[in-house]
């Protein structure tokens, strides 16, 4: 008979024996050694019937096809732009994937995107040698305007977005900011006031730190409301001063 050694939803460490017995099957983040299923990546343990897998709790972004990411233009060549993807591999945005406009050969490409610009783009191809291509030709993809750029832990991205985007929508509404979250952990925040952007960043940082503790949505909404109230009191004081 097999035996489960580690507990579900707990953190397992490389080299840790999770289960004993041939009936268990190793999936993501685990491997079999004789009778044992062992973790080969730091992660949270999930058991689906007899299938054992872990979800990472750390690590850099790894480019995947169809991911929407925020990338930074780092170089310009004859046929397009090289962008940094916040991973081990940079990506190529070729002229044909950038715009429907006709761009003459040899034209000054900085007219479109310059070094240092941030783009929200989609990965269309990752080769075995990790050559990565991105495109801007899909709804919502574009050059990002004036706004703060921060980096978050990639495995926290789903929590920052929330179910059907609920978390990020709440932050956007409460702080009156625009937010774009890239799968690669880059986040763009743009508001009309610095305080709004700072509050949105504060909320995102809180999710990053505490996403594994239950009651997260309440705490975030509390943080956002409390700060809004503070702002109101401040404005009141100011108006009194004027009187």
């Amino acid at each position, binding site marked *: 008979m097999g035996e489960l050694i580690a507990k579900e939803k707990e953190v397992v460490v490389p080299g840790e024996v999770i289960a004993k017995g041939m009936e268990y099957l190793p999936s993501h983040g685990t491997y079999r050694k004789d009778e044992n299923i062992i973790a080969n990546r730091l992660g949270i343990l999930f058991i689906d019937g007899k299938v054992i897998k872990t979800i990472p709790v750390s690590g850099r972004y790894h480019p995947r096809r169809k991911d929407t990411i925020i990338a930074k233009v780092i170089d310009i060549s004859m046929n397009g732009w090289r962008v940094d993807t916040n991973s081990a591999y940079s990506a190529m945005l070729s002229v044909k994937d950038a715009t429907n406009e006709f761009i003459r050969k040899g034209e000054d490409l900085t007219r479109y995107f*310059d*070094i*240092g*610009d*941030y783009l929200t783009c989609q990965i269309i191809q990752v080769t075995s040698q990790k050559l990565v291509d991105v495109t801007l030709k899909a709804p919502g993809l574009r050059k990002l305007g*004036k*706004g*703060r*750029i921060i980096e978050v832990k990639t495995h926290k991205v789903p929590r920052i977005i929330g179910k059907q985007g609920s978390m990020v929508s709440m932050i956007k509404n409460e702080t009156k900011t625009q937010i774009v979250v890239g799968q690669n952990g880059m986040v763009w925040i743009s508001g009309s*006031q*610095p*305080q709004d952007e*700072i509050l949105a960043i*504060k909320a995102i940082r809180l999710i990053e730190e505490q996403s594994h503790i239950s009651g997260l949505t309440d705490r975030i909404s509390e943080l956002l409301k409390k700060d809004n109230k503070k702002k109101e009191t401040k404005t009141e004081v100011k108006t009194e001063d004027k009187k």
Partner: protein
Amino acid sequence: MSNNIAIFNDYLSKGIRFDGRRLDEIREVEVTTDVSKTAEGSAHVKIGDTEVMVGVKLGLGTPYPDTPNEGALMIGAEFSPLASPDFESGPPGIESIELSRVIDRGIRESKAIDNKKLCITKGEKVWMVLVDIVPLNDDGNLLDAAGLGTIAALKTTYFPEFDGVTVDYKKKTKNKLPLTKEPIPLTIYKIGDKLFVDPAIDEADYYDARLTVTSLEDGTICALQKGGIKPLTTEQIDEMVALALKKAPEFRKKIGGKK
């Protein structure tokens, strides 16, 4: 990047920083001493998420011919790639050289260490004070952190036992390093007409000019270093020095100095 400098200017014009601080607000400062048993004195300084370690070794040496009855000070800094993805292995780069020289100058020019007390045999044998600065995590403003750490480490430096021939580093005596003053550097950054202090790493590139002002407890200025490509007017220098002197006590109180 030009994008971000515009935002930074916008923030500063509204009196606020990227992390919500005021322009003249220093992040939380924490100083721990005696962090290395093998050093004769050591300190670990945290300013926000910036962390720097400083160790002092005392070694025997020969005095310089022009100062036969004085010991000597040597300050080195090595920016290990441990502390930042932007640091590379290899010999000290220009930034770490500038950092160690600015800190060195403050201590040397204020005569903070009584070098005559480091003399063992005139013209033959003196104590050398060897300071090494190592960033552990670079989140901006390494220089101020290193300067504070250097004084904290020197303040807690004790001579090892010495029988006239060899040094027994295993045994520390109760004799303190003769540190008579505590010069502390503080850097003021200027962009446009705005001044700010203690930049975090995401603000660190956005300045026209910076001025490191090393001062003593009584407000005496004992070293200056202007950095950045833009010039400064007399009024601007006045303003920057005034701000540096106003903020210096915040660092000083962390190493037990008067407020």
